[in-house]
């Protein structure tokens, strides 16, 4: 590693941005992340709209189909994600105080919660798969389930699958922030990555908070 890179790593305070001052850079990054979250909401918005339409078409079938979901596991996952949002918020607070060790600890908690969420999700999915509740399996394609059932589970996999993908992306993002905290990059003057990373994680959490009642409870 070159001398320059070493000094850059140990440097405290905001990184040098060639075309704007650090305060503008902070506000621009935050604004950019909020806009990106808006696009994410619209991405999931399409799925929510589709869910609303098909629930309206096939109300009673959706009601029966949702009983196949394990609401206890869903509730546990909700708690896990809520707790992870809390630790993400603590990481931001730690970064604002320049406490890189506490940033690392809280980010690790958050990432671990993401892992727990995915493991529980994996058990839910594989249980469904073994019961033939998966597009493409023989039971699913057979006459046992009517089309409306299939619509429910099609949407279930699309919605939870896309959400799980976002959980993984969020964990990757937070891991990148974690690496920066390992190099003690954050201080009261510079904590932008922690804040935008946590913002993204809150959205991942928020989407699940809508998915859980819609799929597991309301049906």
């Amino acid at each position: 590693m070159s001398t320059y890179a070493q000094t850059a790593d140990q440097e405290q305070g905001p990184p040098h941005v060639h075309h704007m001052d650090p305060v503008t850079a902070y506000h621009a990054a935050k604004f950019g992340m909020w806009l990106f979250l808006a696009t994410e909401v619209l991405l999931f918005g399409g799925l929510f709209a589709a869910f609303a339409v098909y629930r309206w078409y096939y109300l009673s079938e959706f009601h029966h189909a949702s009983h196949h979901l394990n609401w206890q596991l869903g509730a546990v996952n909700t708690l896990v994600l809520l707790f992870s949002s809390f630790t993400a918020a603590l990481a931001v607070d730690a970064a604002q105080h320049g406490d890189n060790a506490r940033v690392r600890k809280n980010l690790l908690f958050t990432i671990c919660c993401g892992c727990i969420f995915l493991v529980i999700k994996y058990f839910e999915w594989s249980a469904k798969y073994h019961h033939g509740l998966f597009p493409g399996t023989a039971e699913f394609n057979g006459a046992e389930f009517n089309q409306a059932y299939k619509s429910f589970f099609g949407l279930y996999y699309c919605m939870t699958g896309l959400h799980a993908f976002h959980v993984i992306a969020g964990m990757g993002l937070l891991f990148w922030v974690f690496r920066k905290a390992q190099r003690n990059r954050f201080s009261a003057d510079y904590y932008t990555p922690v804040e935008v990373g946590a913002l993204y994680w809150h959205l991942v959490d928020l989407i699940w908070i809508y998915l859980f009642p819609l799929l597991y409870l309301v049906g």
Partner: protein
Amino acid sequence: MSSQCTAGTCNSCHDDDHNYLKYPKGFWSWVTTVDHKRIGLLYLFTILIFFFVAGVFALLVRTELMHAGRDIMDAETYNMFFTLHGAIMIFLFIVPGIPATMGNFLLPLMIGAKDVAFPRLNLMSYYIYVLGAIMALVALIRPIGPEGLQKFLAGLGLIGPVDTGWTFYAPYSLQSGSSVIWMTGAAFVLGFSSILTGLNFVVTVHKLRAPGMSWDRLPVFVWATYATAIIQTLATPVVGITLLLLIMERAMGVGIFNPQLGGDPVLFEHFFWFYSHPVVYIMVLPAFGVVGEIIPVFSRKPIFGYRAVCYASLAIAFIGFLVWAHHMFVAGISDTSAIYFSAATFFVAVPTAVKVFNWVSTMYKGSIRFESPMLYAMGFVFLFMVAGTTGIYLATLAVDVFYHDTYFVVAHFHYTIQGGAVIGLMAALHFWFPKMSDKMYNETLARFAWVLDFVGFNLTFLPQFVLGMEGMPRRYYDYLPQFEPLHQISTVGSYVNAIGYTAALMNLLFAALFSKRKAPSNPYNSLSLEWQTQSPPLHENFKETPVVTDWTYGYGEPVEGGSH
């Protein structure tokens, strides 16, 4: 007193070795650049390649339609060619079109910034675009070779060139034996690139304006690009999820849009047009901005109704989100919603007409110079007016039932997108060419090419209005003999049009590469910020951050030592 006080940006302080084309040097510095000007040029060359490819497809389609019956290809091939023409023109050429090329190049210059807000994200969005382009090209391949290889490729969804039309309507797109997954996947990836560009521009306009560059001093091109960026950011995710669901349905048999699986194909149309109607404003709004910059400069008059022009851009962007189902009047939507969508569509005409009136009023009693950028801009106003007024026909419920899916729609669409967005891009390229390259092109050849473009374009698409009124359906391979004369005029027109574009772009390319004629840094005496720095601009645009004291349209106002 000059209306722009731009410290440190005078024309005399040329710094040739530090301009963005020369500094830093080397191939690697270009492909890893985070300079918005270079990224604009990368986009420009890439999209022009696809303009050429999709243009060739268009000429092949038009050649096939020269006579009734088979001319040069069979019906299946024809389906593929018109699909590829549409999909490539839309997703690879005209959506990134003006925003990613001219927007990237000009936006920071016009607001007095050194770069966009997220330069690395900007480069990333270019490479995401390239990835999407490669996926789209893969979707053109017809697998050949040993059976094992073909089976392997079929497993990857690679079956043959897409034949669904660029709209990918379900249920056919779910049944078509072609690489729909790759083409829709490409559109998804390209959409992601478009979102990142739009997001970058919105943040740039909000956060990086130079001191004194208040919202009511922003050039109209910036306003238009800003409105475009909002649509890019907010509409594209919806088509993203739509295409993703289509892919899931094709790959895994999830029943969302296929009626055989309990899905609803009309829902696909709703989702698709929720993006694909606003997307026509992504294509054409930046062209409005270009024209709004060119007309005042070549009329030597302040733009008429500046605020109205700016707010009209936002109004178009806003109303554009509320009118999507006017594409679906015959798709079985309820009468109530059809009436609403028809009425809402008429409202788009209001801000659009405000813009046209403002351009015309700007020219009124001005000292007009008919140089090639101005010719393209005036051509734009005329062609776009035809596009807008024929749009009224299509927004009218009873009339649309007859015109739906006829050549009338094809002609209307091409007047909007080719007559609007492509002519707008040509205007922009001619206008800002001296700034981008510091060379001058051959003006005589540029005017000659404009005549070919304008005549060829009208020759191609005016007959198609008549064909549509007489009942010629769009996308058909064959037609009744009475349609033949008009089809032939249209085909000949498309050849003239193609020669025009080729001549115009070759003129620019040769001037950029070989011309010895240096352009002054402000050849048109424009007051806008990008003309106050040297040509080509410095790596960091301005030597010192400019301080803006007035709007950029003070033409014809008395100044010390003469007038602008």
